[in-house]
């Protein structure tokens, strides 16, 4: 588990390592570009996938993003495998009307702010988050309005 000045000599391409490591939890894996991998897991399994990426593959959590769909929120955790020249996006889903997902912030401190931001902007609850407080919206912003939900901020 190291990120030295020189690239690690890794055994196997990242896609194969992910397939081996995640097994049946992996619902779908796409590689539209040699340096980009998108994988889909069921809600809940994103924790195992993140732990595998962070601990076994020494990945760095670059950020997370959410996309609003008609009946669910798509939550993407973007991991950078710096040694393998690859960005791995772990996709999972949080069904509406009350989207919630298990938090990664207890395992990875770097996930704390971005999960609070998604909670503010999209209204997704992160279960087990150490500090589920408002981060990015103004103090007087109404609690039930999430500006990046489709249909706009109003």
């Amino acid at each position: 588990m190291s990120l030295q000045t020189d690239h690690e000599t890794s055994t196997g391409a990242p896609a194969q390592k992910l397939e081996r490591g995640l097994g049946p939890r992996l619902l779908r894996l796409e590689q539209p570009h040699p340096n980009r991998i998108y994988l889909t897991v069921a809600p809940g399994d994103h924790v195992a996938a993140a732990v595998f990426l962070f601990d076994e593959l020494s990945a760095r959590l670059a950020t997370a993003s959410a996309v609003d769909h008609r009946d669910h929120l798509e939550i993407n955790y973007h991991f950078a495998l710096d040694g393998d020249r690859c960005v791995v996006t772990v996709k999972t889903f949080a069904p509406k009307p009350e989207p919630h997902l298990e938090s990664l912030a207890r395992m990875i401190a770097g996930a704390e702010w971005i999960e609070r931001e998604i909670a503010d902007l999209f209204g997704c609850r992160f279960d087990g988050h150490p500090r589920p407080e408002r981060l990015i919206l103004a103090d007087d912003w109404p609690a039930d309005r999430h500006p990046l939900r489709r249909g706009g901020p109003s």
Partner: protein
Amino acid sequence: MNWRIWALQKSPWVYHVNAGACNNCDIEVLELLTPRFDVERFGITLVGSPRHADALLVSGICTRQIAPRLQDLYAQTPKPCVVFCIGTCACARGIFHDSYHAAAGPVDEVIRAVDPAATILYIPGCPPKPEAMILGVVKALRALA
């Protein structure tokens, strides 16, 4: 001439407020203090508290979170004072005109909400060049006389 205005014109001390800007205007304001432009030659200096300031240099769109703080800062500045809106954002919000997190109005409206008679001057540009800021201050001081 009002002696307070006369005193204000001599060596205006300024307090810089970032009201939700992208940093550009702010860095160009700091640029004014450094060797190439060096406005301290004219007695213009940045101060650490609005209570010591003759002028507020405001940059940014004025976000919803900043608006009440900006009004507090304006209230704390001794009068008479001059508010400079630095950059397109502070003048008219510019590229962020349709932001959901902006206050009810740009900087001038937020300040006029607490003091309708406030002296507000505009220096547009994205960001205005340091030369433009110096010219703006010179023009403003002349206009006050």
